[in-house]
């Protein structure tokens, strides 16, 4: 049996780590543009899904440019922020800031005769973040469509929020009640929604994820309230 001195071991370990690190960094660098492109395409597909438009990833960029005609950033008071690119804003970072300092992106979609306003949302599920897009009609009350994604919710349970069946429930729901107060759209326990304009069914077996979506909608839409009001008065 060969004997290994401490020096041998150190040399072996160092060489191994350097080789592994070098290969991984090269691979990561080479693949990064492709990965970034995938993320961009995926984001654009998701934004279009909130307009209930399903596109293949090959023509996602083209369709996005066709339907999303304007994007801008507002602050908590609903004032436009110039020189900021809505698409590249990372909502995760914005949510760490105090309410008054957040940059809130708005995507404007133009369909045949309607103008739709899309806001990104982000919150917590059971295992990790959940996020998505909520599209509102120009009354800033009626939900035109939604799309949700998640990082690591349980397949078959919480992960069902990423299915169109769940998302389509939101179409036509309203975020303000009859007296004009903000009530959001509540995600109830599965089968417990009252069928009214402010409630949808959650996922059975995915209660915590459903609650996460519920809280996310309430919190993020609330931060846009001043913007909604300003737009409505215009």
């Amino acid at each position, binding site marked *: 049996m*060969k004997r*290994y001195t401490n020096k*041998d*071991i150190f040399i*072996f*370990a160092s060489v*191994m*780590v350097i080789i*592994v690190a070098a*290969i*991984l960094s090269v*691979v*990561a660098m080479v*693949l990064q543009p*492709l*990965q970034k492109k*995938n*993320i961009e*395409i*995926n984001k654009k597909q998701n934004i279009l899904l909130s307009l209930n438009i399903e596109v293949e990833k090959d023509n996602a960029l083209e369709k996005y440019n066709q339907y999303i005609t304007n994007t801008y950033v507002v602050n908590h008071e609903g004032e436009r922020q110039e020189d900021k690119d809505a698409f590249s804003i990372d909502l995760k970072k914005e949510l760490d800031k105090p309410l008054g300092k957040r940059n809130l992106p708005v995507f404007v979609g133009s369909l045949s005769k309607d103008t739709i306003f899309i806001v990104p949302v982000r919150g917590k599920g059971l*295992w*990790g973040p959940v996020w998505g897009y909520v599209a509102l009609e120009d009354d800033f009350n009626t939900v035109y469509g939604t799309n949700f*994604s998640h*990082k*690591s919710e*349980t*397949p*078959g*349970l919480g992960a069902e929020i990423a299915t169109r069946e769940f998302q389509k429930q939101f179409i036509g729901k309203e975020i303000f009640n009859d007296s004009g107060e903000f009530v959001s759209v509540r995600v109830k326990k599965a089968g417990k929604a009252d069928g009214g304009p402010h409630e949808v069914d959650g996922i*059975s*077996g995915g209660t915590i994820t459903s609650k996460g979506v519920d809280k996310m909608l309430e919190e993020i839409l609330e931060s846009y309230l001043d913007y909604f009001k300003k737009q409505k008065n215009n």
Partner: protein
Amino acid sequence: MSMDKEPLFSSKNLKLLREPLNDSNPITVQVLGICSALAITVKLEPSVVMALSVVFVMAVSNVTISLLRNMIPPRIRIIVQLTVIAFLVILVDQFLKAFAYEVSKQLSVFLGLIITNFIIMGRLEAFASGNKPWPAFLDGVGNAAGYGLILVVVGFVRELFGSGTLWGYQVIPESFYQFGYENNGLFILPPMALITVGIIIWIQRYRNRKLIEENKA
């Protein structure tokens, strides 16, 4: 180099490939890797992708460790094995993100969990570190396939009864539901994976009597 050239698929080598599928199946006989088998088998598709990823990681890591087997200082061999596995898993993850983004989104955290899969470390330690690359390769593919086979079977059963779909497509006809058939929510929950694995073990031992431990009492 030894002079007695063994054919690539000699019966001894084929046994390495075949045994883990049945007689020494990592999940049903050695009862390893149960954790991940419970987590990702709710649907068929992630089960298959996970099985393929494990086949790749296990085959390549087995060959790597086998090639290095006379160089690795024994005192740090576990660390070396872990580094090789982690390296390969990150590689798979990066490639999936670049070329199969949808699939990588589905597997998300579970792919990283391959690193902690005891089957892989077990085979590296028990087989690859003492055998030549080709048998090590077969052993890796065989064991990963044995693991994958169970994963796919459990995924199939759970998706069929739990969601009424296979690979995301509806297979239980709508008319069944009108007659009062319902998807069994229990199949979606992790305990049902354990019960399904238990039933597979039962059936396997019924058909393959030599696996039954003798009652010493």
